[in-house]
């Protein structure tokens, strides 16, 4: 009889529905757990694992290794960097009229004779010089950068370091932080390894060193007298990459902001190739020069 069959049918449907629902719920839960795990891995940077206990020093936490010897690779603005630029050659620099007046009065002989010959080796300009860098950890929270051109030293302070104040200096006061680092995707990304991925070691982590420098003494953005003032703020991003040959190269994006002599931010980028070894026979400290 139909009603009995219906009741049996309904009862059977109930059982099936309950089984289906239970299996579905378990499956959903499993998927969600897997998703959370993948998400945590992607954000974890180093593939998960227990987070370290207590605050880490900048040196311990460093996601990229900038230490060692580096040589500038001058492929851009060559005539402004490798030789003394001509008087009045201001291509590319967003100068204010006040800056132009100062730069038009530049005299390299007078600059050299004045004794104040390191104006173009201040923090906003020193990484444009053809130079070698030697980067080491002065302590666990201070990265030291030395240049052989002009014998300059810059200190990048991590953590909650505060400037001790005092008169402005050529290299200013620099506060540093590790930035970014979305996880080491390595080669595969999400789509699998492409056939033509560059050979050699995997790329370094995508984290950057961000350095903000203030308390700068006025100087020159280029050796031909383009000035920056003591109101300048400098922001730099140090990005570590691999050349196609696999050799490390650091790209420094340099943003100079000066309300007195620049009409807007002046943005340039310098690159430095790693030179192997703990010593460097090519390291050649030379004095600043205003004429060469």
């Amino acid at each position: 009889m139909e009603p009995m069959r219906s009741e049996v049918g309904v009862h059977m449907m109930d059982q099936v529905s309950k089984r289906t629902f239970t299996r579905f719920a378990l499956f959903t839960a499993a998927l969600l757990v897997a998703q959370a795990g993948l998400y945590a891995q992607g954000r974890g940077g180093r593939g998960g694992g227990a987070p370290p206990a207590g605050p880490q020093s900048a040196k311990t936490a460093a996601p990229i290794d900038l230490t060692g010897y580096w040589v500038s690779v001058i492929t851009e603005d060559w005539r402004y960097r490798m030789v003394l630029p001509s008087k009045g050659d201001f291509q590319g620099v967003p100068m204010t009229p006040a800056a132009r007046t100062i730069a038009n009065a530049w005299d390299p002989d007078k600059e050299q004779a004045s004794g104040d010959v390191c104006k173009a080796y201040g923090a906003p300009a020193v990484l444009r010089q053809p130079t070698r860098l030697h980067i080491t950890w002065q302590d666990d929270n201070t990265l030291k950068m030395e240049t052989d051109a002009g014998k300059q030293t810059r200190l990048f302070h991590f953590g909650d370091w505060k400037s001790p104040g005092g008169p402005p200096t050529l290299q200013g006061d620099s506060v540093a932080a590790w930035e970014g680092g979305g996880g080491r995707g390595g080669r595969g990304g999400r789509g699998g390894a492409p056939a033509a991925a560059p050979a050699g070691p995997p790329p370094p982590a995508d984290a950057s060193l961000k350095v903000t420098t203030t308390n700068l003494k006025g100087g020159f953005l280029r050796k031909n007298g383009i000035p920056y003032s003591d109101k300048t703020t400098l922001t730099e991003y140090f990005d570590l990459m691999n050349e196609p040959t696999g050799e490390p190269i650091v790209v420094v994006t340099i943003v100079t902001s000066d309300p007195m002599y620049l009409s807007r931010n002046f943005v340039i980028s310098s690159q430095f190739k790693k030179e192997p070894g703990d010593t460097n026979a090519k390291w050649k400290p030379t004095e600043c020069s205003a004429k060469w």
Partner: protein
Amino acid sequence: MTFNKLSVGLALSLCVTVPALAEIDLSGSWAAINDEDAMERGAGPNPDDWAGIPFNEAGRARALSFEQSTISMPERICWFQTQWHIAAGPFSLRMWAVPDPLTGRVQAWIVGAWETRAPMTIWMDGRPHPSKNAPHDQTGFTTGVWNGNELIATTTHIKSGYIRRNGASSSDEAVITTHFRRHGDMMTVALFMNDPVYLTEPYVLTRSYNLSTNPVSIGGPPCIVGDEGVESGRVPHYLPGTNPMTDEMFKLYGIPKEAAMGGAETMYPEFRDKIKDKFKLPAKCVRNCGGGAGAGAN
């Protein structure tokens, strides 16, 4: 609905909503900041200025044979630049992602075209590059991988092109590797040119961009062929030893010829010792000194 259908549907929807792991959004209009190499990228470099290019002899010879009017030949007026023009030209970039219609994942990133540079399609789906013997074009074939938040793109299969707009050339065996790194609303793009035919080591240029709310055109203004003064059938060139402009950089800037002729040594600090006594500072800048007068019709 059965369990299987429900499960498949849920799995698919979760795939679509899974966040992009270790990737960032590069889409938008990126305004070029042309503060370095301003002249080289804008109005164009000085003739025979190849300082800082790691040429070999073949690269130098090819550059010396170049006569600028070549690009005014009717066949070459709208000749496309390779993707290296991202670095060698002054243009802003428009970037956008193309999703896979089924999964919603990014299948490709596009760097929009401009005038004489074709769009760069960066395939993100793991497809291999074509066979070594596949045809080349100015666009090339580009694949990309994420290194955390850094996009690394590799371009192969490009035709011969210019690495500087004064005759310095790349061959059809060149490979361009492009790194896109975002710092907030600023982006650093580093391009590496590896060319076994014309270069002795990688040539690197780095550029900066600001994210802008002013839209950058997806394609740029179209190039139209016209009469630029070079009659059909003539191929402007210089035979070996006849290039008349090899002293131009010395005349303008006091830069000795051996520097202007390029080579890897011109990229490194120690080269300064070699040319110090040959460099002659001119009295002042005489042209292309930065800034300029406006223009207009009366």
